[in-house]
C-alpha cells in the first residue's frame, strides 16, 4: 500500500479515534438502556404499591360500609352512627384519591368508572338497609361526585343491583366488591409486580451487557491503537533501520552495498536519495582511482624514461650537472610513484 507517512499517521489516529468514539457511543447507549429498564421497574413498583394501598383502602371502605349498612338496618340511628357516615365518607375519599392516581398510572379508565359505579351500589345498599330499618338518613351524591348523609337520596344504582333488595342486594354488592378487589386491583398489583421483576432483571442484564460490551470495545480500541502504532512504527522504523545498516556497510568500506527500497513515501524518497548520494560518491571515488592509476602509470613511465636518460647521459659523458638533475628527477619520480601506491593501499 503506497501511503505517505502523513497519511499513515492520519489513518492511525482516525482508527484510534473511531474506535474510542464507538466505545463511547456504545457505552452511552447501553447504560441509557439500563436506565430505561430501571425507570420501568420504578414505575411498575410504584404502580404495585399504589394498587396495594388502594386494595387496603377499598377493603376498609367496604368494611366500614358494611358496618354502617348493618347498623342502619337495625335502625340504630344515633350520634355514633352519624359518625359512621363520616367515617365511611372519609375512607371513601382516601380510596378514591388513591384509585385516581392508580388509574392515571396504569392508564386504566375502567378502574375509575368501575369504582364510581361500585361506590354508587354500596351507598345504594346502605340506603336500602336504612329504608328497611326505618332509619332517617340516606346517602346522597353531590355534583362533584362525593357522597354525604342526607334525609333524601338521589342515587342511581347500576343495572347489576337495580331492583334487588335485602339479602340478594347484599350478596350482589359483596360479589361486586370481591370482583373489584380481586379482578381489578389485585390483577393490577400482580401485573405491576411481574413487570417490575422483569424490568429489574432486564436492568441487571442490560448493565452486565453494557459493562461487558464496554470492556470489549475498550479492549478492541486498545488493540486498534496498538496495531496502528505498530503498523506506523514498522512503516517508519524498518526502512530507517535498513538505511542505518546500509550507511554502516558503506562506512565499513562496502561500496557495493545496496539499499533495497520498496516504499513510495517520504521514507522511500529519503532512502533513495541516500543511495543516489552513495552512488555519486562511489563514482567520484572510481574516477579518483582511475586518475591515481593514470598518475601511477605515468610516474612509472617517467621513472623508466629518466633511468634511460640518465644512463645515456652517463655513457656520453654529458654535463655532470645534467646527470645529477636526471638522477634527482628519477628519485622524485620514484617517490611520487611510492606515494601514489601508498594512497591506493590506504
Amino acid at each position: 500500500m503506497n501511503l505517505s507517512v502523513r497519511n499513515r499517521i492520519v489513518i492511525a489516529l482516525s482508527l484510534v479515534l473511531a474506535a474510542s468514539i464507538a466505545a463511547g457511543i456504545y457505552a452511552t447507549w447501553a447504560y441509557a438502556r439500563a436506565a430505561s429498564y430501571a425507570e420501568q421497574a420504578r414505575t411498575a413498583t410504584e404502580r404495585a404499591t399504589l394498587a396495594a394501598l388502594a386494595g387496603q383502602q377499598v377493603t376498609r371502605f367496604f368494611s366500614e360500609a358494611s358496618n354502617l349498612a348493618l347498623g342502619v338496618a337495625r335502625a340504630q340511628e344515633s350520634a355514633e352512627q352519624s359518625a359512621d357516615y363520616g367515617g365511611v365518607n372519609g375512607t371513601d375519599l382516601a380510596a378514591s384519591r388513591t384509585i385516581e392516581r392508580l388509574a392515571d398510572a396504569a392508564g386504566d379508565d375502567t378502574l375509575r368508572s368501575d369504582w364510581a359505579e361500585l361506590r354508587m351500589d354500596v351507598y345504594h345498599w346502605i340506603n336500602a338497609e336504612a329504608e328497611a330499618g326505618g332509619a332517617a338518613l340516606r346517602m346522597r351524591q353531590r355534583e362533584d361526585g362525593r357522597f354525604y348523609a342526607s334525609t333524601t337520596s338521589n342515587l342511581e344504582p347500576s343495572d347489576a343491583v337495580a331492583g334487588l333488595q335485602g339479602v340478594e342486594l347484599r350478596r350482589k354488592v359483596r360479589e361486586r366488591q370481591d370482583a373489584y378487589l380481586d379482578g381489578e386491583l389485585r390483577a393490577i398489583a400482580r401485573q405491576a409486580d411481574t413487570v417490575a421483576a422483569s424490568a429489574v432483571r432486564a436492568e441487571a442484564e442490560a448493565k452486565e451487557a453494557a459493562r461487558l460490551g464496554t470492556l470489549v470495545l475498550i479492549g478492541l480500541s486498545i488493540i486498534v491503537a496498538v496495531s496502528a502504532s505498530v503498523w506506523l512504527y514498522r512503516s517508519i522504523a524498518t526502512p530507517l533501520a535498513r538505511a542505518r545498516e546500509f550507511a554502516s556497510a558503506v562506512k565499513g568500506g562496502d561500496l557495493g552495498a545496496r539499499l533495497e527500497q520498496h516504499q513510495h513515501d517520504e521514507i522511500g524518497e529519503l532512502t533513495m536519495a541516500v543511495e543516489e548520494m552513495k552512488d555519486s560518491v562511489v563514482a567520484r571515488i572510481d574516477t579518483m582511482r582511475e586518475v591515481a592509476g593514470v598518475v601511477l602509470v605515468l610516474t612509472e613511465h617517467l621513472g623508466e624514461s629518466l633511468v634511460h636518460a640518465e644512463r645515456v647521459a652517463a655513457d656520453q659523458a654529458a654535463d655532470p650537472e645534467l646527470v645529477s638533475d636526471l638522477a634527482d628527477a628519477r628519485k622524485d619520480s620514484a617517490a611520487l610513484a611510492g606515494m601514489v601506491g601508498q594512497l591506493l593501499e590506504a
Partner: protein
Amino acid sequence: MGTLYDLCKRVSAELEAKHAGDPIGLVRAKGELATRAGFLVTLVGPNDYDDPGKVAALRAAASELGIVA
C-alpha cells in the same frame, strides 16, 4: 548514444575480472587504459556523444591490454 558508455562498462568489467583480488593492479590497469585511450573511462556517461575517435582509441587500448571488447 550509449555505444561508448557500454564499451567503457564492458572494458571496465573485463579489467575488474582480470584483476580480481588485486586492487592495486586493477588501479594500475585502469590508469594504463586511460593513458592509452587518452580519456578517463569513468567520466563517460550513458548520454555522452559516441565519439568514433574515442571508441576506436578505447578498443585499441583494450586490445593492447589483452582485453577483447
